[in-house]
């Protein structure tokens, strides 16, 4: 009888240690997940920031000023454009 009780007490102690450990692990992992998702959100924010930056780099006003001033380009007009007709049946 006593032996069974001792065994049960030991089993209870062991499982409670495991429960505590698992709880600790789960919270640690939860924190890690949460930190990663916060990081993911931050990266999304950075991504949007970069997209806006890239958009600002290619804004027509900037392209126009570089093309005209630095590259000495001019706007095409129909006199310097060759128009080709797409053959019928040719789908793109």
């Amino acid at each position, binding site marked *: 009888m006593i032996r069974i009780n001792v065994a049960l007490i030991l089993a209870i102690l062991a499982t409670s240690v495991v429960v505590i450990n698992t709880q600790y692990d789960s*919270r640690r992992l*939860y*924190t890690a997940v*949460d*930190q990663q998702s916060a990081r993911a959100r931050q990266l999304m*924010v*950075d991504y*949007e*920031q970069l*997209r*806006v930056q890239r*958009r*600002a780099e290619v*804004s*027509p*006003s900037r392209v*126009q000023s570089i093309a005209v001033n630095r590259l000495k380009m001019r*706007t*095409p*007009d*129909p*006199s*310097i*454009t*060759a*128009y080709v007709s797409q053959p019928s049946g040719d789908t793109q």
Partner: protein
Amino acid sequence: MKRRSIAYSASPLLASRTPVWRSRFILAVLAAAFLGLAGRAVYVQVLDNDFFQRQGEARFARNIELPPSRGRILDRNGLILASSVAAYGIWADGADAKHPALGALANLLDMPKSALDKRIARSSDGFVYLKRQVSPEIRNKIKALGIKGVSDTKEYKREYPEGEAAAHVVGFTNIEDKGIDGAELAFNGALTGHPGSRRVLKDRMGSIIEDLRDIVQPVNGEDIQLSIDSKVQFLAYDQLRAAVEKHDAIGGSVVVLDVRTGEVLALANYPSYSPSDRRTRTGSVLRNRSMTDTFEPGSTVKPFTIGLALQRRLVTPTTVYQTAPGYMSVGRHRISDSSPHGPLTVSEIIQKSSNVGTVKISEGLPAKAMWQMYTDVGFGQKPETVFPGAAVGRLRGYDAWRTVEKATMSYGYGLSTSLFQLARAYTVFARDGDIVPTTILKTMEPVKGTTVFSSKVAADIRNMLLLATGDEGTAPRAQTLGYSVAGKTGTARKVEGKRYSNKKYRGFFVGFAPVESPRIVVGVVIDEPKKGGFYGGIVAAPVFSQTVQNTLRIMGVTPDQTVKPNINATGVKESL
């Protein structure tokens, strides 16, 4: 005796005289106390656990608001016109006023040291913002300074890559990310979204260790795709700015409409402002002139009067009217042309923009029919636009028209319209006589309009307007290379007080291209040009020409006129 006492010691001398019931009593009391504790434990942990649960949560559980991000505003090709990026509000609360790094902080915040010192001093009484909408890089540098009592809060900043070119269309938000003008205001509801929330347990390090209930995800604002083409928008703005500066005018506007869908492809005003710079957002530059400023449309209305006469079979394009000697009397008033023309056909009346001819034609038209037609094309009607402050214009009821008013109304005086309304009205000729609702949102579907004129009348007017931009017309400068254009100039004296000014004019032009199958309607107005002429055909027509040419090129419309090729490339024989 032995039963009545308890031996605490082996020595009989020290034998106690304590009765047994006392120890039993103590035992019972202790047992009852333990039972009481057990009962309390059950009560606290099982039966009535709310209070302690609450107290526990108050120490470790936190509500976190999940802010939604504001939707973006895109142009018709998906390019960003407005988007929210991360920024920080830098604040102080009980900061150290003698910290050695305050000079560096003032530099980073781009504010004078004395102004910063004042705010830091005020922060001894509590929270003070030092600067808002600071970029993440600056914020990191500020953090690195490690000034105690200076911290930051995350916020959003709205970026407008297109800058001042699209300012009046896109509008702007205030510091709380709420739309104040333009599309930002018009679509504020859809752009805003709804915040989410979560309730979490935090450990003493502040890390989240558990969610206490399901996360309510934030609903981000929707992206809004406008019908604006940012290239067309920029080029229109650029041409407009050049023209306003060249003629030393006080302002101007350009409107580009897609004929098939009623979409607004570009809507530019000058002077403009930079939407992301709060300091430039003041005064009259905020005005969306194309929508809010009204003027008497003058000659640009003549095609409508003549269209009505054609529609009622009062005239044909070849009917001849005598306009000599270049003036006529209506009651006590004299109506005159800028120069006498002699006999003119109806087509030539448009081409030469004859007031006398138009009034003679309008004499056969009932006032009610004219009023109805003006109303149908949108004059004096609230434009179906989302923009705040769009002007209705003025068109008085026909029963109040006097004879002379009906006469002046036929050539565009006595009623007023905004440039936007005028451009929209011209879709009637660019389409087959029907008028479509305009939209600032992208739609791909062709729309069905309300018929005002028959398609035959619309085609006749198109041909007459083509003549007006010909070499013999009033606006040869509206011509483009490769595309046929049709349109009408207008020059109106501005009203000063109660009379027309002799010095202040508005020059405008409204037309469409290509003439055979129009794709766009373009309206241009230049306000108070002071140098190099003031007629619409001189100040506004070149902007029209450039805008049409650029827009049709960007839309990929093949030129309908033959152009002498100027290509210097020499072909290389293809190898077999």
